[in-house]
């Protein structure tokens, strides 16, 4: 009976417009923030940080980014891995070139650079649509990876082409390098995630978001009612790539600490993030988190249950992980084609009517 909007009257458009119109959601959200910032940092350990939370948060950023492009603007892209690589290498070059500047700045600039690259590769989207565009963005994927592998300047002429993140700190606390505390890694990612989610939410609920969605739903009509398709699509590519670039930078600096472009940012990354977007739900910020959680946590969970719990041989359980993940994806789609976010929404609808379904 808690979950009601009745009696929760809106007296202004701003109120009517807020992210969580329902009181209960609002409080749940505040509670989540309090826990995320106030509790988790004190109980987190290396395993939880490195195996679960940090990758989850980083992928959440990437997923939000890609979701803006695919879910809101309807432009299918498979260049994510390449764009993450841009973010990673940009941050690496910046960190090594200007050690005195704060890493936060570096990561933001890396995002900016990625945005520029994204815009460049977004240009064909004016002529190319749908799956054709998706495949076209693979050109970006493969070219960028090749480039970072080929040109030694990008990896400071190291013998092997590996880049490793030097030690950097924020407010005197290490966030990269060998001697980094779990909570510090977690916090910097969390801050970025919250900021990105907040920006994304604002953009998508306002004029920009409507332009994107108009293009997504019917580009011709959108143009005729006054949306400039070039601008709309390119801004989507820019914003999306900005987030993805940040994700790439964090993935390299905070999470992996060392990266090899082909392995860390290969085509499989592009698909992974795409899966996250679609499983989570197109055009939903919450969905982005859900999708990232699903794809990051599920394998770890399965591994721990199958190997840790049931003492299966690692290979058998690894194969089973694939089988189960695949089956679950299909099951979800049959159950609810529009992703976890929609599933969640439906559940809430039910809850709102409960206990009187009619």
């Amino acid at each position, binding site marked *: 009976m808690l979950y009601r909007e009745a009696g929760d009257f809106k007296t202004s458009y701003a109120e009517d417009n807020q992210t969580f119109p329902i009181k209960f959601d609002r409080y749940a959200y505040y509670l989540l923030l309090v826990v995320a910032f106030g509790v988790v940092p004190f109980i987190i350990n290396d395993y939880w940080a490195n195996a679960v939370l940090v990758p989850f948060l980083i992928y959440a950023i990437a997923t939000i980014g890609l979701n803006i492009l695919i879910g809101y603007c309807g432009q299918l892209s498979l260049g994510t891995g390449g764009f993450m690589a841009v973010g990673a290498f940009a941050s690496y070059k910046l960190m090594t070139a200007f050690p005195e500047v704060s890493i936060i700045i570096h990561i933001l600039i890396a995002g900016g650079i990625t945005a520029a690259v994204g815009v460049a590769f977004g240009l064909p989207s004016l002529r190319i649509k749908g799956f054709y565009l998706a495949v076209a963005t693979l050109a970006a994927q493969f070219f960028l990876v090749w480039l970072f592998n080929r040109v030694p300047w990008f990896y400071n002429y190291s013998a092997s082409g590996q880049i490793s993140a030097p030690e950097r700190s924020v407010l005197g606390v290490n966030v990269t390098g060998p001697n980094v505390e779990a909570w510090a890694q977690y916090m910097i990612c969390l801050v970025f995630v919250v900021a990105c989610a907040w920006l994304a939410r604002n953009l998508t609920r306002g004029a920009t978001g409507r332009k994107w969605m108009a293009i997504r739903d*019917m580009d011709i009509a959108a143009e*005729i009612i006054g949306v400039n398709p070039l601008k709309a699509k390119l801004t989507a590519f820019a914003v999306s790539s900005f987030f993805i670039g940040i994700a790439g930078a964090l993935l390299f600096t905070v999470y992996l600490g060392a990266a090899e472009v082909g392995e860390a940012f290969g085509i499989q990354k592009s698909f992974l993030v795409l899966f996250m977007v679609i499983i989570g739900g197109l055009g939903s910020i919450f969905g982005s988190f859900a999708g990232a959680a699903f794809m990051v946590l599920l394998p770890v969970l399965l591994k721990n249950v199958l190997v840790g719990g049931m003492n299966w041989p690692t290979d058998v359980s690894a194969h089973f992980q694939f089988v189960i993940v695949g089956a679950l994806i299909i099951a979800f789609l049959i159950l609810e084609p529009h992703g976890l976010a929609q599933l969640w929404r439906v559940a809430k609808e039910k809850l709102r009517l409960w206990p009187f379904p009619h």
Partner: protein
Amino acid sequence: MNTMTENTTVGYVTDDGRQIGGTIMEMKNITLRFGGVVAIEDISFDIHEGEIRAIIGPNGAGKSSMLNVISGFYHPQEGEVWFNGAKRPPMKPFEVAGQGIARTFQNIALFKGMTTLDNIMTGRLTRMKTGMLSQAIWWGKAAREEEEHRRKVEEIIDFLEIQAIRKTSVGRLPYGLQKRVELGRALAAEPKLLLLDEPMAGMNVEEKEDMSRFILDVNDEFGTTIALIEHDMGVVMDISDRVVVMDYGKKIGDGTPAEVLANQEVIDAYLGVSHD
């Protein structure tokens, strides 16, 4: 027949006593071809400020093509388009919209993934000016702008009597309502010139009456200039001040409904043959 060179005509008074202003838009000798096919052949006509101008003709007469020329979706091979007393250079549709020309579509072109409210809000896009950065920050400028435009949109929602479906996704709405929402989206732009592409197509009698009422109300409450297309003459003759009649891409009549109905050519070409 229309040999006006520059558009400084005085207005006129309609028989129901409304004062119509001077020319707001003028089409001069428009010719539009698709490959070999001639869709529009050397057509000229004008639209006066504040009037309801109808373009009628049987299916395939080139009406929609004409509308698409006005809204910049097609670019005629010959002829000139004058708007607000200036010759219009070839423009992209969104630039035309920026000039204050809004329209609806024959087969509804709403944004299926969005709610009624958001759809109508898209009509305001040409008028929302805050930069992306301040939108990303939201607090202050963007929020304020959002709110004032929302207020405007709510007026339109009230005017069209669709408050109940504010938050419903348009995909789920019945046809008639969708048409109404689309009209709302066009109105939200507060256009100088409103183009309606068969606003009553596929409607039953009372839906048609509702729609006609809305069109008339729009015209005299907001004083919006309206150009509409219909192939069903009945309604059109009641609501429009002047009518252009097209057939096979040619203009065969132009004038008040009465004049047009008296025009023999029209009677032969249009009324003579039976249309739905």
